[in-house]
């Protein structure tokens, strides 16, 4: 076995421990943020060096090192770097526990990396556990009543869902006798199944897996934790949850469903349609309930449910198109990348603004274009991208994923999705309208730290770059998606 391939993960683990230890000695806590970012950059650097090499596996086929995993590792480290940069102002309020804060972010990235790389049910479960626990602690980090409530809710529901997930995995293992995804696929292929009801235990296992990951990606009806947790959690962590956790969920779903359950015609046909139905429900409910929201974090919470709905259009495509065609997978990865920069950008701008105003209410963003032109402009760009308008990234992402949907014959779903984006324009624009056309509540300018402005700059560039030159990233997503067919 080649331990070199595990270096990105090892780096993160070492840096996480180092940050906790350093916390004991260092007085200026800003150093900790710097060390964490350094760890993430080094880890990302190691990951980059592996890009393009042959897909390999480590730890007895438990983890894959392929472009698919590497793509997600880069995405996660990028997310974490931006989240940490955006947290600098925020974390300085927590004088005692800053080391833990950064260490937990690093550990959760480690968990997500393992989720993206795992090719075997038990490792997937363990990676998921590491991620969820770190995130729970982070959600409750403010230790005020809202934050604690959010953490508790997140913890309890995660616990329940992970039981459901484990049960699903147990059923799949019971039927196939394997935990290795590729071997599960082989066993299922060998089964003489003619009808879905021939093997109810397997079907139940698959459904319970969908439920477990549906919770992670915030699909309706497993979404109910989202608004409460998003509202209560520290805003940088909300941003982190909304992109990182969701992307990790999609990574695992793609891995499992393109390999283990990708082969048999009867099974794939049905889960594709199942995701199509969940997609339609998720985006409709997310968008419609986002309309009356007055708190911007809750609004973005519902918006993230809707975005999960658009993403699931891609999952439905994966289930319907032949496995050799990676259009759906590639569209999902591109959508995730674009959603990541967009949503992170939106949250970072909100962090900067609400640091000053101490409010997450949309009405308090009134006239922000005159108090903080840069922040308001960046937030507008991100909201325009979330609507899915050119030239922002959101347009290309939606376009790519919807054309994959039409390609697989899901025209009805795409029509629902496009109608939904019309509805969504209404509530996103309300924020734009308030910021541009509203009267400022005070004349005081809103200033933000350099780290925050830097991260906002990066995300804005990302939004425009993915919107105007999407070809660069689409090449990566396509290369990453092709890996799903080459599993050991």
């Amino acid at each position, binding site marked *: 076995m080649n331990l070199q391939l595990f270096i990105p993960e090892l780096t993160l683990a070492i840096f996480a421990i180092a940050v906790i230890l350093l916390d004991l000695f260092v007085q200026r806590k800003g150093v900790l943020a710097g060390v964490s970012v350094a760890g993430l950059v080094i880890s990302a650097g190691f990951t980059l060096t592996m890009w393009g090499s042959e897909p390999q596996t480590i730890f007895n086929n438990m983890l894959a090192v392929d472009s698919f995993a590497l793509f997600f590792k880069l995405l996660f480290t990028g997310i974490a770097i931006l989240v940490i940069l955006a947290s600098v102002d925020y974390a300085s309020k927590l004088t005692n526990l800053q080391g833990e804060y950064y260490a937990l972010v690093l550990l959760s990235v480690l968990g997500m990396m393992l989720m993206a790389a795992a090719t075997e049910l038990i490792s997937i479960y363990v990676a998921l556990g590491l991620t969820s626990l770190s995130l729970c602690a982070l959600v409750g980090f403010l230790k005020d009543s809202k934050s604690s409530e959010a953490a508790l809710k997140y913890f309890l529901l995660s616990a329940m869902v992970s039981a*459901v997930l484990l*049960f699903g995995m147990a059923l799949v293992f019971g039927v196939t006798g394997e935990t290795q995804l590729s071997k599960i696929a082989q066993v299922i292929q060998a089964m003489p199944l003619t009808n879905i009801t021939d093997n109810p235990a397997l079907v139940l296992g698959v459904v319970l897996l*969908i439920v477990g990951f549906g*919770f992670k990606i915030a699909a309706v009806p497993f979404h109910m934790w989202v608004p409460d947790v998003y509202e209560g959690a520290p805003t940088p962590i909300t941003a982190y949850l909304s992109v990182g956790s969701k992307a990790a969920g999609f990574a695992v779903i793609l891995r499992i469903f393109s390999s283990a359950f990708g082969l048999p015609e009867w099974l794939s046909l049905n889960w594709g349609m199942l995701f199509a139905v969940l997609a339609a429900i998720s985006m409709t409910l997310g968008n419609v309930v986002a*309309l009356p929201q007055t708190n911007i974090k809750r609004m973005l919470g519902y918006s993230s449910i809707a975005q999960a709905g658009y993403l699931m259009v891609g999952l439905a495509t994966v289930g319907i198109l032949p496995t050799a065609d990676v259009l759906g997978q590639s569209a999902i990865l591109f959508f995730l990348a674009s959603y990541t920069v967009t949503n992170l950008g939106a949250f970072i701008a909100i962090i900067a603004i609400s640091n000053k105003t101490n409010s997450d209410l949309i009405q308090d963003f009134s006239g922000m274009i005159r108090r903080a032109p840069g922040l308001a402009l960046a937030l507008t760009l991100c909201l325009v991208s979330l609507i899915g308008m*050119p030239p922002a990234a959101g*347009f290309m992402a939606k376009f790519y994923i919807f054309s994959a949907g*039409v390609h697989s014959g899901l025209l009805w779903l795409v029509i629902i999705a496009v109608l939904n984006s019309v509805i969504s324009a209404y509530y996103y624009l309300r924020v734009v309208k308030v910021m*541009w056309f509203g009267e400022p509540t005070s004349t005081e300018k809103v200033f933000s730290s350099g780290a925050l402005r830097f991260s906002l700059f990066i995300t804005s560039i990302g939004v425009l770059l993915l919107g105007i030159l999407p070809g660069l990233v689409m090449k990566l997503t396509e290369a990453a998606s092709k890996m799903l067919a080459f599993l050991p």
Partner: protein
Amino acid sequence: MIASELIWLIFLLPVFSFIIVSLFIRPSVKPTSKIAGYITITAISASLVLSLWTLLTVMAEPKHELAVPDFSWLTVGDLTIRIGLMIDSLTAVMLVVVTVVSLMVQIYSQGYMHGDPGYHRYYAWMSLFTASMLGVIMANSLLLIFFFWELVGLCSYLLIGFWFHRPAAANAAKKAFVVTRLGDFGFLAAILLLYTNTGTFNIPELHEMAITGVLAGTTLTWAAIGIFAGAIGKSAQFPLHVWLPDAMEGPTPVSALIHAATMVAAGVFLVARTFPLFVNSATAVTIVAVIGAFTAIFAATMGLVMNDMKRVVAYSTISQLGYMMLGLGAAGLALRQEGHVTLELAKAAAAIGIFHLFNHAFFKALLFLGAGSVNHATNTFDMRQMGGLRKVMPWTYATFVIGALSLAGIWPLSGFWSKDEILAVTWDTQRVLFTLVMITVLMTAFYIFRVVFLTFSGQYRGSDPGSHGQEHDHTTHLHESSPVMVAPMVILAILAIISGFWNITGSFDAFMGHGETRSFASGLFGIFTHPLPWIALLVAGLGIFLAYAIYGAKWLSAERIGHIFRPLYIIFSRKYWFDELYENVIVKLILLKWVFAALEKIDTKVVDGAVNGLANTVRTIYRIALLNGIFDILQRVDGTKIEKANGVIKEPNKNWWQVDGIVNVMANGVTASGEALKKTQTGQLQLYGLVIGLGVVAIILVLYFAG
């Protein structure tokens, strides 16, 4: 010959001026400086020169097309998207229209917007708008058109809400954006549909496929209808017309450029651009013709009764856009009746609508600038506060009357030539629609001369906007606008007189249709050998005479007539209650209040009765169903903790605990840390868990019964 780099510059120059003004001028220069205006005007003047050059080059080409090398924007797997320009006669004509009107409006704005605190912002958005509009015109792929299509919508949004301190402006901006997006939904769906069926976004390729019949049947019809939906939104056709009158909250030069001459005409342009797709579907062309004709008369009725000068002109715009759509639809029907469809014939058929667009752009921009000039002097758009301005504002008066005559379709002004082409082709194909638009001709002449007489003749009825004391005579503060505003109006007035001459022998049609023509015009006087112009002129003259009789000479009392037709007056002035229908009934009452509130309640609050009922039902269902065993197992896993749960949940509902099985499983999760949960004072968590559980059951049931 013109180099392709120079053609790109037509689009890039306004982009540069947008970048310079927004990034460098706006942060560093005081709003009183006119530098932003000069930069924009220079850029657009250069674009205009290049556009004229392009037009001449295209005219000289035997096929009226210029090949501009395109380049690959995106290549991923099978998906290759190329970006390029399509320079044919339609593009060349539109380029000139957009750059001319834009230049006139920018010059006029130097006077109109002078001293506004948002002066630089104004010019930045105007540059971006002009660039995007040129992008729509020049793009050779539907995807690229959509890209710029959305950008012009965004600029329109920002410019309607330019005076954001007025709540009406901010609301109008949002309304315009959301309503037009409803149409864009159809457009995007059509693009996706066409792409999946043909594998291309390229417009010439799509033309080819439509003409040769590769693309046909229901796919083609739906694609055409989808594209037309986009056009309906952008061109404010019925039933998405509601946003345009409200958009008049923006600065008047914006209305002249965006909401009269260019952006709203983009819908007509889009239909013309994809016309070969339309002519091969009888359903699509019929829809275009019917919607166009209906919108024409529908908007005209509302224009009859408005008291706001700018709104009359706005309804007139909707009505005239309806004419253009009718021209396209009727010409398509005529072409289908003849049974022989080629690319050239299709383009020649589209020329009828486009010719009206071409003429309309000049005279309608002129009318808007005239209204702005009046507003500049009187500070109002309310015609009840005007009157007698002819003496004070002779230039505005003269140019406005020229615009009005052109709009009414009086020989030999430009409106006459293009309107009669539309009337002629409608007469050939659809007599019912012909009757409708003939009535519209009467209304058009009436309402626009109502504006002329109310505003410019008689006595001044308003209070002097400039003085608060009594020492001044009424009219001393009323003044003609400055030369920088009058000059563009004069130029547009000249264009409104002469632009129609292009087609008096059918040469515009021939240019557009590569030699083919449908025009019936035969010379400046030759056209009167046909009976139709006589009738049209008579009807329009009657309209002007009626307006004179009521508002000019006052032989008839407007009040009495209003009284006699009171029910109609109310219907028209309340705009058929469409605003109320859309806003109050649909959005607020049905959707917002009812559905959203209910959904939010279901989604975030504990719904006792309903949930218990649901849970009971589910309990019964799943007990019967196969899956009973699973939940027994789950229950056993957490079984030890059930007892505690009772003490933890605040005021547990009795029924709640009868719902054993699934609910217990959920409740067990809750027990794990009961004390903390007490503090939160909510019972929501069980509900969340319950919903997840119900989700599992629902999925299984669906799979079981559907699979």
